[in-house]
């Protein structure tokens, strides 16, 4: 006997100029289940959820709650129906306290005055009951991303929502936080709340969900019981072809030293301690060296120091040249950089795709003549890159970068950086938030670059990626390199111990 459907989205069609984002999609959410919504970037998951949440009106199709047709015209309607959503990019006010953020829009008032005490009691009770630890009086800008997410979850609970939408909730979390979130989600489901879980991380979907609905290119592919399926068949459904989940690569053939870092430190902006302290290592051509570590252990600062975005102390030698004091532009002559934050550093979001494609190269004679941009050349070049790297967008080269899906934005950056053909490729979390198809593609590209004799310095937080992609692993803990491991001989457990600071090598490289 099928459980009752609490929410049904029947034959939803949503079109945007030039693209059908949702084409006749049906999604049925049962009471008390965790229902995963799986699809590549741009498959229409977010659009579908935005329809459910009242941000968009569908051209066709109906939404039913408990069998009754309902109209969701705006997010307020959704809230009234008990639908809550944790967006991928949190909707919090940075300068408000956690408590203020939670009650915002649903304040308890008496004669126009806020009744914060009652609100506080309710939030504290919820926080205790579900083990969602937050500091109610801290400002949102001061707390970690993981805690911000707990604030978002508490917001939904505070409004007594019974249908919870999580839009790629794990993309920003550390492995430990992901485990906690999974446990919380299971707890919610046990209590009869229904959860829609948008993700493209197959491990998580397999672990936590009861059923999976797969979308591909705006179309409904199917709904399966999680227990009757496996990762491989899910990814095949999602991408539409068999996908290689493991990285295929030959052993590395390292050549000359490309990057030589010696006693490099980056002072912290907020603490007296260095963010990066006395780091020394080499990267040779034809190898992928990965800096592993838990987020916030100095990887970002190190990369900023290396690429020139922040000032560091020590020596950096790139292709035989001392670039310790070089400008960002000078460093760029031998280095390409896939940045960690694609919105902050990677793209000018309000520029078109073609303008973004020449962000570093516009000074080259090929793209300008006497200071005038050669528009035709830029267009041709962008079209070549779009084709070569399969960057999908609404209007090709003239698409505004902001309107592209996250995965295609990342692909655009990768296309730009890899096509610059530099000796050293710095890739910081290049696959963050991407689906298996895109990850497979990016991994194969990085391996191809390595095989062409490029030196690749990868920073990753994903243990799977670290283990499968790298030829050598450097573990960073509290700003220092605490170990150098060979992925072929080490285990995930051992790597984890180094990452957590429980183990470290002496300077001589002995395992202590």
């Amino acid at each position, binding site marked *: 006997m099928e459980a009752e459907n609490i929410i049904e989205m029947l034959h939803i069609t949503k079109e*945007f*100029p030039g693209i059908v*984002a949702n084409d006749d999609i049906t999604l049925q959410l049962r009471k008390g289940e965790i229902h995963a919504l799986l699809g590549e970037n741009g498959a229409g998951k*977010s*659009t579908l959820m*935005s329809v459910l949440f009242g*941000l*968009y009106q569908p051209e066709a199709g109906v939404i039913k709650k408990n069998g009754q047709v309902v109209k969701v015209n*705006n*997010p*307020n309607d959704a809230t009234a129906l008990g639908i809550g959503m944790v*967006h*991928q*990019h*949190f*909707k*919090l006010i940075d300068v408000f306290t956690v408590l203020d953020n939670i009650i915002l829009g649903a304040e308890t008032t008496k004669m126009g005055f806020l009744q914060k005490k009652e609100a506080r009691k309710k939030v504290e009770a919820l926080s205790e009951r579900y083990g969602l630890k937050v500091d109610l009086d801290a400002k949102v800008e001061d707390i970690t991303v993981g805690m911000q997410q707990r604030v978002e979850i508490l917001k939904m609970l505070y409004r007594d929502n019974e249908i919870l939408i999580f839009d790629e909730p794990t993309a920003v979390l550390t492995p430990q936080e992901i485990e906690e979130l999974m446990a919380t989600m299971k707890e919610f489901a046990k209590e009869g709340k229904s959860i829609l879980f948008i993700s493209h991380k197959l491990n998580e979907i397999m672990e936590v969900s009861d059923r999976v609905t797969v979308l591909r290119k705006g179309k409904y592919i199917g709904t399966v019981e999680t227990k009757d399926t496996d990762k491989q068949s899910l990814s095949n459904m999602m991408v539409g072809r068999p996908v290689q989940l493991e990285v295929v690569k030959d052993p590395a053939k390292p050549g000359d030293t490309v990057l030589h870092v010696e006693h490099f430190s980056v002072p912290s902006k907020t603490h007296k301690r260095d963010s990066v302290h006395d780091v020394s290592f080499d990267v040779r051509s034809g190898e992928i060296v990965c800096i592993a570590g838990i987020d916030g252990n100095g990887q970002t600062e190190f990369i900023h120091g290396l*690429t020139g*975005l922040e000032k560091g102390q020590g020596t950096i030698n790139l292709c035989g040249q001392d670039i310790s004091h070089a*400008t*960002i*532009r*000078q*460093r*760029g002559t031998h280095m390409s*950089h896939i*940045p960690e934050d694609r*919105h*902050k*550093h*990677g*793209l*000018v*979001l*309000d*520029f078109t795709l073609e*303008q973004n494609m020449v*962000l*570093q190269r*516009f*000074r080259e004679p090929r793209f*300008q003549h006497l*200071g*005038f*941009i050669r*528009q035709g050349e830029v267009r041709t070049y962008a079209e070549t890159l779009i084709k070569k790297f399969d960057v999908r967008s*609404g209007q090709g080269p003239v698409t*505004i970068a*902001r*309107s*592209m*899906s*996250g995965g295609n*934005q990342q692909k655009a950056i990768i296309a730009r950086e890899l096509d610059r053909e530099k000796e050293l490729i710095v890739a910081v979390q290049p696959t963050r938030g991407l689906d298996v198809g895109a990850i497979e593609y990016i991994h194969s590209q990085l391996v191809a670059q390595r095989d062409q004799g490029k030196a690749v310095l990868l920073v990753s937080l994903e243990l799977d990626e670290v283990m499968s992609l790298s030829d050598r692993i450097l573990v960073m803990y509290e700003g220092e390199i605490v170990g150098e491991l060979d992925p072929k001989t080490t285990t995930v457990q051992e790597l984890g111990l180094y990452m957590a600071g429980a183990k470290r090598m002496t300077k001589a490289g002995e395992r202590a």
Partner: protein
Amino acid sequence: MKQKGPTLLSKDGTKSVLAALLSILIGLLVGGVIIVITGLATPTLGISGVWDGIRLVLLGIFSTGRDAAGALTFGFNSTNLGNMLFRATPLILTGLSVAVAYKTGLFNIGAPGQYLMGTAASLMLALGIPTETVPAALVWVIAFLGGILAGTLWGCIPGLVKAFLNINEVLACIMTNWIAANLVTWMFDGSNFRNLVENTKSGYIYKTTYNGVATAKLGLDKIFPGSQVNGGIIIAIVIAILMYILMSKTTLGYQLKACGANRHAARYAGIADKRNIVLSMAIAGGLSGAGAALYYLSGNTEFFWSTYQTLPATGFNGIPVALLASSHPIGVIFTGCFMSMLDIVGLQLTNLTAYNEYITDVIIATIVYLSAFSLVIKMLISGHGKRKNAAAPAAPAEKKAAAPEEKSASAGEGPQSAKGGNEA
């Protein structure tokens, strides 16, 4: 309008022009309402006064006065049109100043200060260099360039402060505005550029014609006889075209826009973000300075030198001029002319009807104010497209904006449908 929707309306330029026209219409409509209300409330005006007022607001630029029977007459009025172009000259340039800065992510509210510094420099040079020894044409060029330079330097200050100390340019601009206002008064106070000959005008500086310096007419006085128009308008249009080329065709414009749109990404790509911020403000300042120079070098304008309590409206009016043009340099030419047309219309209204100058100012200000709403209206027109963008991971602020946007959409429909009724 709906059927043509996706293809025609999806073009950004179409949207901007449409939005500008709509907001002008709304402005005129509300201005008309004020005319009706004040007209009916004023015994000397009455229904016929209201009718005159409305016709003058819409067609004032073609007004040729009243005929023998006392009815308003309309036709080609060379004085009005020429004066419109003359007054548009500085507005186009301060509009460009605001627009160029805005395109590079900066809000140049410092145009009045830059305008004042440009005024002071060009007047001092035009009046100070003896034309007996230096040819007047050369003096004109020196004064013009001096005005630009003064504006440029004055614009640099907020740019430098922003780039190196990360202090908001709006704050710095407001400060530099008042510094300029006092500095200029101090410079002229006690100088021998004050017009003491015509002592009824003791608060004024000599016209540059006193030293034989004036902008060439370039034959425009033949086309618009009886007006103040001169070659300055042509220079302003050329500068606007140059700015358009600079911003959209050159690597410099590309860098400036990149820094404005995302300073971090520009830096990441090796673009000198600090240099470009200073450069943006310098260019903006130079444009305001050029506007001042062209206005005061005309030879038929007098500068009231006691500026320490007021800032020139021309500087501030650059903001609505730029907004109405969606910061497009070519659009600024037209919106600058529109703003100066309103000026002329205001004069006609005061001169030909019993509407006094104060109520005229209220009406004109209302039209200007509502014209500046073109951005909001553009957002409403492109509301559809904007939602699509929100489907991609949108910045937090954007989705929050979605809800209030919807409310204003329904509110905005009022005047629009009213306009439809008007046409029918």
